[in-house]
């Protein structure tokens, strides 16, 4: 069932505002952060207006309601991912989720499957966002482990040809993005998961750019951990998710320590509550969890398959149009095979910053730069790119506006 982006756009108040000299907003920067529908904004507000109290920390009625709201949100996330509620950890962002994993592994003691030493390796790829690269660089530096990576082909695909030498008997962790935030490439996971598991390594999936845009079923993917951010899934800022297999979350040491994640505490030592509590120190970001619950419910009602199909059809339209503009080079796959709705490109000698500024003057919001994937940008041999990233509320008119904007910019900077 095709979705109706015009109807959907009405749910997002910001989409009816204007930019610069009264231009209609054309928001093509959802890869950076998505806009929020009223149901999400209201869910957060209503939590504060009616149910706010410290969850899990009181026997009074408001505390009960806050706990129900928080745990209800956890169940929604679990259902959304086809996971169990106790496998869902609330963090502040995907960045925190990935740091949680890398620091918690750093806390693992010798004998644990998560304990790394010199001789072990961590595998990433050249297309990782800094959030799924630097935490692993740091873990490698702290433990003496080696960082290895999959290269990216000129077409913007993972080069898996040396998979057996990259993931080898010493590999403990493979951390890979599901969909590149620059290239739009969707990485096939089957061989990676198989190889990683065959050598006893865990697979961490950075799903920041996939969970918001397609059906992600943790059981069928076969990976071990998944991370994503609420703010990219039409949810609030300040909330992220870590999903992990129960037995792995149980084995993993905690990261942040403090209130509510303990079992017992003395002046000199502490023991931990079971997961997910073990990973949620402090009064939780309750209103944001509730907002994320509302966001995922909203997306589910529309249907993730429909959202994906909509984005794919717009991306195809955009790629077709870009192919007809002189000097435009798409960075990343130019066909829709294993590809999502994120399209990065260069326009001749026009620097992306200048192009972006011109587009902004027309009300069109795109992102320019290295998109927090600097090693990838360097590998592709460009100083920066311009990125249009699509979502459920974008329309064919948005694509046309972008195409017209690019042509006009070419004239402006000629």
């Amino acid at each position: 069932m095709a979705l109706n982006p015009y109807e959907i756009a009405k749910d997002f108040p910001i989409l009816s505002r204007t930019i610069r000299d009264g231009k209609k907003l054309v928001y093509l920067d959802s890869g950076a952060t998505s806009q929020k529908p009223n149901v999400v904004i209201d869910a957060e507000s209503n939590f504060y207006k009616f149910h706010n109290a410290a969850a899990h920390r009181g026997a009074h009625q408001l505390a009960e309601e806050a706990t129900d709201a928080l745990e209800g949100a956890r169940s929604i996330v679990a259902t959304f991912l086809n996971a169990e509620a106790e496998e869902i950890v609330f963090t502040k962002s995907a960045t925190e989720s990935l740091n949680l994993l890398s620091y918690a592994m750093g806390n693992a003691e010798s004998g644990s499957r998560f304990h790394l030493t010199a001789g072990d390796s961590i595998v990433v790829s050249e297309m990782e966002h800094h959030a799924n690269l630097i935490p692993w660089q740091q873990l490698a530096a702290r433990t003496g482990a080696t960082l290895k990576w999959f290269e990216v082909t000129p077409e913007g695909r993972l080069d898996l040809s040396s998979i057996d030498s990259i993931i080898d008997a010493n590999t403990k962790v493979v951390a890979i993005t599901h969909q590149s935030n620059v290239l739009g490439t969707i990485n096939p996971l089957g061989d990676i998961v198989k190889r990683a598991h065959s050598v006893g390594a865990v697979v961490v999936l950075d799903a920041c750019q996939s969970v918001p845009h397609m059906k992600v079923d943790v059981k069928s993917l076969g990976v071990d951990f998944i991370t994503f951010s609420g703010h990219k899934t039409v949810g609030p800022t300040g909330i992220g998710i870590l999903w992990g297999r129960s037995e792995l979350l149980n084995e993993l040491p905690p990261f942040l320590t403090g209130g509510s994640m303990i079992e017992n505490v003395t002046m000199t030592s502490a023991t931990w509550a079971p997961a997910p509590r073990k990973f949620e120190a402090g009064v939780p970001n309750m209103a944001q969890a509730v907002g994320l619950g509302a966001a995922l419910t909203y997306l589910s009602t529309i249907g993730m398959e429909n959202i994906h199909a909509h984005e794919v059809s717009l991306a195809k339209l955009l790629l077709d149009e870009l192919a007809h503009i002189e000097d435009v080079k798409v960075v990343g796959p130019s066909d829709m095979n294993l590809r999502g709705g994120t399209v990065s490109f260069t326009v001749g000698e026009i620097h992306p910053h200048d192009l972006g500024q011109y587009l902004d003057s027309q009300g069109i919001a795109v992102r320019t730069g290295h998109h927090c994937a600097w090693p990838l940008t360097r590998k592709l041999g460009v100083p920066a790119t311009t990125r249009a990233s699509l979502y459920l509320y974008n329309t064919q008119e948005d694509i046309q506006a972008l195409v017209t904007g690019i042509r006009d910019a070419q004239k402006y900077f000629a």
Partner: protein
Amino acid sequence: MQLDNLYQEVILDHYKNPQNKKLSSSYDAQVHHINPSCGDEITLNVTLDGESIAAITWDGVGCSISQASVSILTDLLIGKSISQAQVISDSFMHLMQSKGTETGDEAVLEDAVALAGVSQYPARIKCALLGWMAFKDASVQAMAKNS
């Protein structure tokens, strides 16, 4: 008052006169459980006689719900077989998760049905379960030891 559903006479009686609240000097298993959210603690001893529960004794600090619940448990389970205790425990667990929709099977749970009201107070369910979790843990250990 709705609160009276929670604090039934039976509960307050057990709270004031807790049964078997004196740790036996010998036992097959001893466990120490804690409720991390409020600090309630319990030590519980189990002694088996073959398949049957010869003794349960305990000591601890906690609210009326946690104290009454373990007191009722001892009354209910001492003398029963391990498998009967299992059935009763499951039934109690089920009642606690019923969110106030069930009243409990008096034939199985006897006095423990007085705790039915707890299921309407999510934050208190852990109180009611503290002793039952301790018993479960201890009985598994006792069986392991004896086998």
